[in-house]
């Protein structure tokens, strides 16, 4: 793996650890905040005849405090999920854009958008979309990219896709590439798109 990606990987692991620690602290703080002021029980009949201690416990659990606490916890989880969905560690961004710039030259604009996505605009009508996955779920591989071309109008699309080792979906060429293939397969994708454009 590239040195930049190694760096990004360790950075990501560190940040995950920091996020976990912060979440544990935030968890205990919210727990304290939501249960210390007093219990606002939701009025309800205890289901069966229970000893009074149990009824008290039931009131604490079945209360607005718990509802609020769960909401706060859900917000925390959501923020974590958003953070890991949206952002790619900076060294990985540098690696990706350096590779793309190396192939497509300084004149093709590369736009980065939230959600670890990149778009290389080749000319007015064609572009390549990249989505990066920091860690692939099933295989545990780091930094896997999904490449998607813009929609291509040609009757030979299947054939062109096969002959460049890509799959097709909705009239687009798609493929998954690992970080060490990013360079060579983006070249092939650009070539395949040029072929498709000229055989339209």
């Amino acid at each position, binding site marked *: 793996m590239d040195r930049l990606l190694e760096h990004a990987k360790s950075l990501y692991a560190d940040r995950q650890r920091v996020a976990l620690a912060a979440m544990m602290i935030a968890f205990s703080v919210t727990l304290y905040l939501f249960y210390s002021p007093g219990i606002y029980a939701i009025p309800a009949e205890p289901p069966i005849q229970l000893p009074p201690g149990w009824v008290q416990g039931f009131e604490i659990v079945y209360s607005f405090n718990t509802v609020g606490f769960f909401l706060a916890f859900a917000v925390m989880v959501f923020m974590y999920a958003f953070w890991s969905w949206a952002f790619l560690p900076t060294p990985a961004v540098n690696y990706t854009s350096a590779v793309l710039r190396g192939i497509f030259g300084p004149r093709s604009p590369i736009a980065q958008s939230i959600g670890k996505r990149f778009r290389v605009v*080749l*000319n007015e009508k064609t572009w390549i979309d990249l989505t990066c996955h920091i860690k*692939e*779920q*099933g*295989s*545990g*591989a780091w930094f*896997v990219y999904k490449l998607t071309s813009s929609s291509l109008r040609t009757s*030979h699309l299947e*054939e*062109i*896709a*096969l*002959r*460049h*080792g*890509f*799959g097709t979906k909705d009239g687009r060429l*798609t*493929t*998954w*590439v*690992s970080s*060490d*293939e990013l360079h*060579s*397969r983006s*070249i*092939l994708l*650009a070539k395949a798109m*040029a*072929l498709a*454009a*000229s*055989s339209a």
Partner: protein
Amino acid sequence: MFEDLNTRSSIKRNRGGWFSGNGDLPSHPRKCSGSGSSHVRPLCSCGHKQLDTRLRNMSDNGTRRPVYELIQLMASLNETKRAILIALGHVYPRSVSGVQLSRLIGYSGRSRSLYRGVLAHLEQDKMILIDELTPKLYAIRINVEHPLLQLLVDLCREFGEETRRIYLRALEEE
């Protein structure tokens, strides 16, 4: 970079040419499957004449194109994928299980992560075929309908006899 590569004509030429999807080539693999006997017979004689003429034709400009494309494709893949295609191309009429494949390519990880990652991607790109025999046992083979891999299998059958023997011997050590 997007100048006309004069491709339309070449695609059309290839359609009718020797490397058209389902042409004369894959007719013989079934007959000559040397599937798994420990002494490997010399490859079949059926269909070899056709193969020779095809390979001679390859020196024409038009039909050398698939060779270029095959080299380019193999060069674009990473080590693991390349090793998988080469191994599967050599053992072709046979299919292998995930465990066998990971041994053949010298993969140190678990075969489950191979399935979920590299193999799934190769299957999506139609380079290999995966048949589910039982929920835990899969048969993996190269896709010979693929225009370029068909050529690879051809070349392996023609020149890769010794390599093929090595791979098959590795498969038989149980």
